[in-house]
């Protein structure tokens, strides 16, 4: 069982080593990186390449650790008791299974994605320590222990909005997805758009990396934005020359809306264009 990347996902060597280590030693893998470098997609692709089911648990600021295990639906039980429903006598009827339970129960050892763990409260990872370590937990209401038959592959992503506690980190493997270099980027583009013109790609990549080098951008464009932009370029059927035209008017690249996500950045580029025009005169 080895992860080698898929036809839709270019995995660098260090990423493969980290993923395989996590699979073999059955520990969670924590993935960090700039937004849009394919952290969430990674879990999907691991599931696909290993032929496993993917269970996604998306974390929000209001998510509590208990919700991943199970929830006791007290309100429906209360209602049923007032209506005289027979189900009310068995408390197990009101235990709602969470994503972790679902993953533990699945015999096929699925891939469990805990997405954006840093969105939750600071204590959230600590509350999951034992559960992820031993892959078991105790249900107080029914007095039973749920234990993973086969340990699922756990992928955790973080956008670095909060620091994670040391005790939690010690139990994980860690991988930081670096921004891909131009060569890897060409591979990634080739995987997504196999029949795009080579010249268009190289022009677009040049422009893209130039843009990333511009200082003072609020949000640098990332891989997913590049892919969107290429899709647009293809849809508009722009010739590669349109990208190369270095005359001042086009210093703001065509269809920049896919790359620049806030008006300050667009403004910055327009200003640069203006300055270039003055210099050119």
């Amino acid at each position, binding site marked *: 069982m080895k992860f080698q990347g898929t036809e839709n996902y270019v995995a660098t*060597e*260090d990423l493969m*080593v*980290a993923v*395989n*280590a*996590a699979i*073999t*030693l059955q*520990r969670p*893998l*924590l993935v*960090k990186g700039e937004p849009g470098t394919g952290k969430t997609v990674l879990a999907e692709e691991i599931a696909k390449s290993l032929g496993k089911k993917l269970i996604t648990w998306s974390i929000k600021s209001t998510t509590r650790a208990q919700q991943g295990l199970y929830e006791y639906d*007290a*309100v429906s039980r*209360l209602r049923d008791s*007032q209506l005289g429903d027979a189900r009310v006598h068995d408390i197990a009827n009101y235990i709602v299974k969470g994503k972790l339970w679902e993953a533990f129960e699945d015999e096929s050892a699925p891939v469990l994605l805990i997405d954006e763990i840093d969105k939750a409260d*600071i204590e959230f990872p600590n509350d999951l320590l034992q559960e992820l370590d031993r892959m078991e937990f105790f249900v107080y209401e029914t007095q039973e222990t749920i234990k993973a038959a086969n340990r699922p592959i756990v992928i955790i992503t973080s956008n*670095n*909005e*909060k*620091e*994670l506690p*040391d005790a939690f*980190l*010690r*139990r*994980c*493997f*860690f*991988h*930081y997805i*670096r921004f891909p*270099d*131009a*060569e*890897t980027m060409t591979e990634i583009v080739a995987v997504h758009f196999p029949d795009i013109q080579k010249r268009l790609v190289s022009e677009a990549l040049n422009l893209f990396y130039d843009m990333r080098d511009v200082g003072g951008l609020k949000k640098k464009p990332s891989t997913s934005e590049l892919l969107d932009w290429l899709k647009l370029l293809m849809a508009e059927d722009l010739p590669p020359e349109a990208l190369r035209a270095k005359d001042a008017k086009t210093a703001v690249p065509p269809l920049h809306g896919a790359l620049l996500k806030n008006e300050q950045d667009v403004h910055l580029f327009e200003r640069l264009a203006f300055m270039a025009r003055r210099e050119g005169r």
Partner: protein
Amino acid sequence: MFSGFFYKLKEARVPVSLREYLTLLEAVEKGLANCAVEDFYYLARATLVKDERHLDRFDQVFGAHFKGVINLADGIDEVAEADIPEEWLRKLAEKFLTDKEKAEIEALGGWEKLMETLKQRLEEQKGRHQGGNKWIGTAGTSPFGAYGYNPEGVRIGQDKSRHRRAVKVWDKREFKNLDDSVEIGTRNIKVALRRLRKWARTGAADELDLPGTITSTARQGWLDVQMRPERHNAVKVLMLFDIGGSMDDHIKVCEELFSAVKTEFKHLEYYYFHNCPYEGLWKDNARRRTDQVSTWDVIRTYGADYKLVIVGDATMSPYEITYPGGSVEHWNQEAGAVWMQRLLDHFEHAAWINPQAENWWQYHGSIQIMYKLMEGRMYPLTLEGLDRMTGELNR
């Protein structure tokens, strides 16, 4: 196995624990390292490093520790890194250099001359080199080498995609700028400050209290809905900012800090002072002469439950702190130290954030005095410093 490496990591302040070390050994035993140095590097990195801020330090330790081993094992020559064909260099330079830069090279004696010197130095150089101003290496000021800042420099080996020599991945130190003592941005500051949050329920009861409802329903025998107020961040912060003079150097980072705290805390009060707090503080720098608030009033207005955070470089003449009349701007009846002491007596939780780099503190008498006055609660304006500060304020 690898225990020397483990201790070196600890020395380099990469937070590693025994557990991670054992995990690494387990992984190696399971054959995950493939008996290849590069795979071992990736594996060790995934196991031992848990924060991208530490990646750079890890790379350095790894490079230093396994240097000899790698050379023996793979027979790769140290000079190999610098052994780049001239043709390739030329191509690289043509790609990267602008016309202006090319003109500068001409000024240095032309391309040929530069290449000649480069070759000569390559021959002289026997090992990999870091820093310095003559040898080819990394992060130096010599015109040759990577990551340097000599304006007329030639970048060698920075375009790594063409030059993927496997063993040298860690030598690239790609994670350099993620070290936590360097960069600080609004978002990062917010994350650091978030530690200060203290949740409390105040205000109108507008949230369903489910456990309360259940308990009370069970007790009453009918559905008895209970409400409770929403949770809010209840921490109160009073900030004093040093403004003007020597603080001008730090204005950007202070602005970032200011905008971060402004959105992060609901109860935030701020005042300005110059160099050292005396009898008056002000809220608006344009009206600082006319609209001063007495420091006594500030102490009386804000309760002891406010956390006092003073931001300043504390770089001034020592007299400005210790002597009456020491202020550079006006005649102060009482010394700055007296006013500092009054503030500190009232506000139990207090800290001083100093944008000046920590290793400079010992060379400034005034910083030393302030440090003593604060009883050591002075922290550098870095993420790590803010972390220590929030820890102190939360105690």
